[in-house]
């Protein structure tokens, strides 16, 4: 990769070239490799190296932004000039804020050399192991195994310098039979903890277990949601409602409800960019250190995440969740954790008695963000629970369900958690058993 010294040289070149009143440099550099396989063939195996340089120039109360991935002297000079030219075209903004001041950044161990040095052969061996397990069981495997190293720099003319390096390894697989499928994924900053064989065995077992699915009628059922499904739901909760801007604009399901008990007391959700069991990042895209934010504590809505603009509007300080400025999106909670409980997966199934067991969701989307209503399909292992045991595989169902409503019917929270890649970081969530979950439709497989 490029390294802190090289990126500092680029940033200093930008700041030296700029004649604007204030200048900010954002650099996103990455080296990413991905191996994709299907039907016992690696059909895509790719590598990419890039560094995106974004220059924000402020002249008076006018802001201009230009970006490039040409970091030659000429490329940098052109981007600096473009940012200034754009700023001069702007009207004065009453929303202007001076750029972030220098701050002390936490040191988070987010870069693992083994991940950065992972080879295409190592990823191919992981893919091959999964394909062999599938073939031995008479099944077909598909999936992707990626590793990446990334660097983020935020520097500005106020003297701010923030540099972070990190790695990420991600493996997911779907194993398919004639009428069944199973899924497993692993995400970690350390590729040595990605157990391809373990993931393959998990997905193969689920594909075998879900053969010959039977029809089940749509309707409300108690459910066990595996952590894969809960993690996806958690990400959509963030997208719909955990941002201060969504609350300020009145479109969040948390608007007007902070301080109130909104879900079961066994549910706690927080955002922590410094927790090494997630995908840590010490600061945001404005160069503000990340703070832990309690969003739902023992069922009570306690907070949302802020960037500098939304914080200034309420006379508060940013929590370090800003996206590149300026933007119309507002802040984003991207390092979420939902508190685990103590129940094993077997105990969760037992606690439900009769209901449905969902491995994961597919194509989830908000139907009514203000009511936190989501729709989506089940996928890769859906089962009927009877007498506290998995009784039979069933065909997939569509759900249309308010998340807050669902989290008011908690039966038990699982001890097992998974980490999944989010839009800007990664979220960790447990298995859940819920007393009521509405399935609004069925499909043919």
């Amino acid at each position, binding site marked *: 990769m490029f390294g802190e010294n090289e990126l500092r040289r680029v940033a200093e070149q930008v700041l030296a070239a700029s004649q604007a009143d204030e200048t900010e440099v954002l650099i996103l550099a990455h080296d990413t490799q991905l191996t994709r396989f299907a039907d016992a063939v690696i059909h895509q*195996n790719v590598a990419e190296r890039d560094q995106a340089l974004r220059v924000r120039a402020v002249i008076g109360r006018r802001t201009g932004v230009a970006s490039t991935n040409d970091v030659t002297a000429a490329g940098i000079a052109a981007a600096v000039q473009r940012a200034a030219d754009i700023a001069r075209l702007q009207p004065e903004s009453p929303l202007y804020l001076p750029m972030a001041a220098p701050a002390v950044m936490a040191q988070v161990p987010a870069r693992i050399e083994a991940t950065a040095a992972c080879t295409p052969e190592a990823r191919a061996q992981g893919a091959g192991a999964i394909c062999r397990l599938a073939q031995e069981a008479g099944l077909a495997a598909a999936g992707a195994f990626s590793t990446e190293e990334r660097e983020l720099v935020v520097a500005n003319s106020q003297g701010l310098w923030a540099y972070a390096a990190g790695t990420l390894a991600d493996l997911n697989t779907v194993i398919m039979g004639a009428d069944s499928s199973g*899924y497993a994924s692993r995400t970690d900053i350390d590729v040595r903890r990605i157990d391809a064989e373990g993931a393959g065995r998990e997905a193969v077992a689920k594909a075998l277990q879900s053969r010959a699915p039977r029809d089940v009628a749509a309707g409300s059922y108690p459910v066990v949601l595996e952590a894969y499904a809960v993690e996806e739901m958690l990400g959509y909760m963030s997208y719909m409602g955990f941002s201060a801007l969504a609350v300020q604009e009145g479109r969040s399901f948390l608007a007007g409800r902070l301080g109130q008990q909104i879900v079961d007391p066994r549910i706690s959700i927080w955002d922590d960019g410094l927790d090494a069991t997630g995908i840590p990042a010490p600061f945001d895209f404005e160069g503000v250190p990340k703070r832990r934010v309690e969003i739902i504590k023992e069922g009570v809505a306690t907070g949302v995440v802020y960037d500098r603009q939304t914080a200034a509007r309420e006379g508060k300080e940013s929590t370090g969740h800003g996206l590149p400025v300026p933007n119309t999106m507002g802040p984003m909670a991207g390092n979420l954790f939902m508190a685990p409980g103590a129940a094993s997966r077997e105990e969760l199934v037992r606690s439900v008695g009769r209901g449905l067991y969902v491995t994961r969701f597919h194509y989830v989307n908000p139907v009514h963000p203000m009511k936190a209503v989501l729709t989506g399909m089940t996928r890769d292992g859906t089962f009927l629970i009877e007498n506290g045991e998995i009784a039979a595989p069933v065909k997939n169902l569509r759900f249309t369900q308010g998340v807050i409503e669902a989290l008011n019917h908690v039966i038990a929270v699982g001890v097992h958690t998974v980490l999944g890649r989010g839009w800007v970081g990664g979220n960790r969530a447990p298995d859940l058993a819920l007393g009521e979950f509405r399935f609004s439709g069925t499909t043919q497989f």
Partner: protein
Amino acid sequence: MNELAERALNVAQLHGASYADVRVVRRERQELAVKNGQVGKLAMDEEQGFGVRVIADGAWGFASSSLMTMAEVERVAALAVTIARASALVKGEGVKLGPPEVHVGSYRTAVVRDPFAVATEDKLALLLAADEAMRRVPGVRVSQASLEFLRETKLFTSSEGSRVEQVLIESGAGLETVAVGEGEMQKRSYPNSFGRHQGTAGYEFVEELDLVGHAQPTAAEAVALLKAPTCPSGVMTLIIGGSQLGLQVHESCGHPTELDRVFGSEASYAGTSFLTPEKLGTFRYGSPVVNLTADATLPGGLGSFGYDDEGVPAQRAELVREGLFVGYLTSRETAARLGLRSNGTMRADGWNRMPIIRMTNINLEPGTWTLADLIADTDEGLFVDLNKSWSIDDKRLNFQFGTEVAYEITKGRLGRLYKNATYTGITPQFWGSCDAICGPAEWRIWGIPNCGKGQPPQSAHVGHGTAPARFRNVQVGVMR
């Protein structure tokens, strides 16, 4: 650019590649957005880079970089071959591309007015005026107007002898209003959902949309929706407007006809397809009035171009003829598996992505009705349009969509406005219930600038030509 590309081909072949292609891509993108009276985004982004795709030992390898130096070209081309050899550890029968495709040519989007030559002040003035018109409507909480312009310059060369240069230019614009009150949040967009409507065209595309003229009625309808009754549930007749129908075509026809998806390449991510190869030519996908095509040659469509990213010329292909499933979107490799030639749908999201099969302009061919006659011919039902929620299962059968607006149809006339409309169905049953499609006068190519597919993720710009159409016995209203 030419020297870099030639060097990459040479190095790849010297390292043992049996096939190689190189794409050198430069993208310029201008984005402007005004939100609540303030300029929320004004950015000019440029990026460039190259990608080298090779076959070595019968397997694929791809490497890319943004550093445009000869040394980096040599590193990346060699790396692509190394990666291909790693792929060969799990390669099956090996890649077969079919007969060589050798094409030399160039293509440039026809524009009346170069969008990058229009003064930024004029663009901002347009957005500020449209935004102000929306904010003048009492009850509007969030107003947003946006423009986007893209210029992509591409060079494709291959070891088979192809050499194609293209300049693709896009213009896009849109309005979005959010009203909050009555315990509700309602959104209205113009002219399309997903922030904007976009085409391969110049600034004339924006001027024809008349953003300022449509700002007030768009905002007023968002506010009206707050007090509108909730859409009733039931099985009913639906007339679907062109914008929503574009997304319906996208999800339930475009994606399931992608042949790489059919062969399982997307299985671990976006899923597979119910349109398996044994159904080709025999499966009844829809009613006899349903004709669906893929046409990358249509002027102005967001999925229009001269050549795909394997250097294959843009084409028009039939997917569904009189309700019968007759064709796929194909690449060289997938077409060869069916004994066919590629119909030119391989596209990559920039220099740093390997091409995959993408929709071009996937069109529901026009019928003969007018919308006025279609409504007049409908005794009871709903007219719905503009998407606000979408989901479909991983074989593209069970779908559910929510729309921004729904109007009651009673005795052949439009009636009350309803909020929070949703409808759901199973793809072939739904298309089988289509009994009327409006004609060419109401047919338009809708641009969707954010179609996600692939790992690593790729976002494609695709088009959907549609006119309003009628469907019988549709399940409406599933939200509570």
